[in-house]
């Protein structure tokens, strides 16, 4: 009888799915119901096509809401640190850099971060201001982490990997919750999420949250860095509305605002405090038609940044940035075995800064993409995707004298760059899946790389300039994965090996060797500085038991070699020293137990030593290496459900050490947080 009941439930769920499921982008997919059908998470992040996570032709880890809650984390990077292959550097409580498979650094420009398909990284340096991501942890359905390039779907900057944060769907998921937390470092924070629905026709979710805290003590930093650091203050508001216009036709609109102030480690190895105000507005429509799933969306991201740093005290220190993006796609199934996705994208961004750009720089991108998935046999699928981005650069303002470039040089710069992804997925048996993937990703020079303009004498006896002729960096990646389901112990095993080659690495101008400019002045110019190779492997197992226990163990190894023109002659000017600045080994383990009203989790992360960098006290153009020894960080969380509506929880982060040197920033301190969550 039990089997029949679950079977009947599955049958009815399929009807619901068949009636409700719509488009692949943003939130049109009813993740919850599809997950109910297939007993595993579903995703569109790999190819734009709705897929079961186990069938996606990429190395993807999906972090569920349960996983997020059990970490006790207060930030998204703190959640990501438990994914094999993901590197998280903690330069402060709010300042965290996330990298995938090495190549992590302050202002890391190699990671594409999205919220429901909307970019939340900043085009200025291609970096992510994690505190300004306007999402509360409680409203996240899942975080999809793709390791390896995925430019053929997403375009520029999806080079190391992609992190797509999927929130609950206001049309189908009713999330009403509030959390209040406080703890050491004078931390106080809270969040609230509320959802309103009109039957199955309309839904609206609103979230708000923020925190303030004392940052880690800057005892090991220079006096200048200590002075430039201010305590974090973060707040965000988000609204997400969806409307079922007709069967198979859905419209959505979302908007967000976030304010943050936090100290940030710069690529120059020094600290500054950034005050950022970001906002976004997006509208979209999807329709399931006879010619496929048509999707259209348009959005604008805006950001106002104010920099507080003694290093740039003589310069106007504000930067305004905006990006407009329009996307259209058609996803159609041809016959029983072929799925094709045609995509078009237009992007227009601009960054204005009298102090650092001398005016306004921006570019337009026109992109076209094509994805083809061929189910060759029921157990073999081949996916090929290709995308071409065509960029046109533009500049207006006053170029730094002595750079050798003219405004005309900028405004005549355009280039087209192709990228591709291919993946072969073979379900060898119902328990064994093998994936072979080849990809080329493209990292675009950032707006700063193209357009920084700092005249001679402003920060030193040198002209510092962007370069309109700098080339995009390319990443070629080949990877073989093996997944093994272990039903006897309710577990899944994954093994992956990969190799990648990075060409035309881009260096910001402060780090390159100076040259004599055309006017005879010393010149630091954004440049392509060489290449780097990486190879590595990952193995991990994750499972759970009916008894309430859950566990995970993983290990990731990556070895990197560089061939660049940087850091020659005994002088270190650049953090592009990946061979030394990547921890080769990372081990992660976790065990948890849920019973009755209790939820208990213990997580650990060990990583091998690596070299980080900080600015030289005597010469701001030079860096000093900081040896970060291998360390273990242990976290724990306990939660007790007082009633059906209220849960109290306590989490201890890095409880095994009061202080740890994890980066060239301040020592990371032990944190203990207490909280109460109400859910309705």
């Amino acid at each position: 009888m039990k089997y029949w009941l679950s079977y009947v439930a599955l049958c009815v769920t399929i009807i619901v799915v068949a009636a409700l499921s719509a488009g692949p982008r943003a939130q049109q997919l009813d993740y919850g119901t599809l997950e109910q059908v297939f007993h595993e998470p579903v995703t569109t992040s790999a190819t734009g096509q709705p897929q079961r996570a186990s069938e996606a032709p990429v190395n993807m880890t999906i972090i569920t809401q349960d996983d997020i809650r059990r970490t006790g984390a207060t930030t998204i990077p703190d959640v990501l640190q438990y994914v094999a292959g993901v590197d998280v550097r903690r330069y402060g409580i709010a300042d965290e850099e996330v990298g995938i498979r090495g190549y992590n650094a302050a202002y890391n420009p190699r990671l594409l971060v999205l919220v429901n398909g909307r970019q939340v990284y900043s085009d200025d340096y291609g970096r992510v201001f994690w505190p300004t991501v306007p999402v509360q942890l409680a409203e996240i359905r899942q975080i999809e982490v793709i390791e390896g390039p995925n430019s053929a779907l997403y375009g520029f900057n999806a080079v190391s990997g992609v992190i797509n944060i999927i929130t609950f769907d206001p049309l189908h998921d009713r999330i009403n919750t509030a959390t209040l937390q406080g703890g050491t470092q004078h931390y106080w924070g809270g969040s609230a999420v509320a959802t309103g629905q009109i039957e199955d026709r309309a839904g609206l979710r609103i979230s708000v949250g923020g925190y303030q805290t004392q940052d880690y003590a800057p005892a090991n930093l220079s006096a200048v860095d200590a002075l430039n650091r201010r305590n974090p203050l973060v707040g965000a508001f988000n609204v997400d509305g969806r409307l079922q216009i007709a069967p198979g036709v859905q419209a959505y609109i979302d908007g967000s605002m976030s304010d943050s102030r936090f100290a940030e480690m710069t690529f120059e190895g020094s600290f500054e405090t950034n005050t950022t105000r970001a906002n976004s507005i997006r509208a979209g429509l999807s329709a399931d038609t006879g010619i496929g799933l048509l999707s259209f969306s348009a959005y604008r991201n805006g950001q106002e940044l104010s920099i507080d740093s003694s290093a740039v005290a003589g310069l106007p220190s504000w930067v305004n940035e905006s990006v407009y993006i329009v996307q259209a796609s058609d996803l159609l199934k041809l016959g029983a075995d072929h799925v094709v996705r045609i995509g078009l994208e237009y992007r227009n961004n601009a960054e204005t800064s009298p102090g650092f750009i001398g005016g306004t720089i921006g570019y337009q991108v026109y992109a076209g993409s094509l994805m083809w998935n061929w189910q060759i046999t029921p157990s073999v699928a081949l996916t090929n995707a290709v995308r071409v981005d065509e960029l046109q650069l533009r500049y207006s303002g006053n170029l730094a004298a002595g750079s050798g470039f003219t405004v005309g040089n900028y405004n005549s710069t355009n280039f087209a760059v192709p990228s591709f992804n291919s993946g072969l997925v073979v379900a060898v048996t119902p328990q064994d899946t093998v994936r072979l993937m080849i990809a080329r990703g493209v990292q675009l020079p950032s707006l700063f790389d193209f357009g920084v303009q700092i005249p001679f004498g402003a920060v030193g006896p040198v002209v510092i300039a962007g370069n309109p002729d700098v080339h995009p960096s390319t990443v070629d990646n080949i990877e073989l994965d093996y997944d093994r389901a272990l039903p006897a112990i309710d577990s899944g095993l994954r093994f992956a090996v990969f190799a990648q080659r990075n060409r035309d690495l881009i260096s910001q101008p402060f780090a390159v060797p100076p040259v004599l400019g055309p006017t005879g002045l010393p010149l630091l110019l954004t440049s392509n500085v060489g290449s780097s190779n990486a190879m590595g492997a990952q193995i991990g197992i994750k499972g759970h038991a009916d008894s309430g226990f859950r566990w995970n163990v993983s290990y990731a190894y990556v070895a990197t070699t560089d061939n660049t023109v940087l850091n020659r002659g005994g002088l270190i000017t650049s953090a592009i020293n990946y061979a030394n600045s990547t921890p080769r080994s990372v081990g992660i383990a976790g065990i948890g137990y849920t019973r009755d009203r209790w939820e208990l989790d213990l997580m650990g992360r060990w990583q091998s030593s690596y070299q980080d960098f900080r600015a030289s006290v005597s010469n701001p153009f030079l860096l000093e290496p900081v040896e970060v020894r291998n360390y273990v960080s242990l976290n724990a969380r306990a939660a007790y459900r007082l009633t059906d509506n209220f849960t109290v929880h306590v989490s201890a982060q890095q409880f095994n050490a009061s202080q740890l040197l994890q980066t060239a920033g301040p020592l990371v301190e032990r944190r203990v947080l207490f909280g109460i969550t109400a859910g309705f």
Partner: protein
Amino acid sequence: MTALGKGLPIGGAILTPRLVDAAALGSTDFGLAIIAANANGEAVAQSVDARHALCVTADRTAVQRGLCTVAINSAGRVDIFLNNRVAQRAGITFATAFRMMVHEQ
């Protein structure tokens, strides 16, 4: 089936099931038929088609033979098999996203 009481709520739908003999299906009003593995046949298929109902079974060969619309294998990994010809015959269309996640023929 009495264990389902007033129905089984799933998503936005409530299922109210009844156990019906295959021979009596022709005189029964229904929107979804879950066919036991050994009950698939031409008569059942005709009854389902006549009501433009969705036919679901655990018997994959019944779907391959055009006797039922959807087969679900839920033992271990869930796999869903869909016969488009049968669906068209019954006037049933599936959302494109769903079709991309199942095995079609």
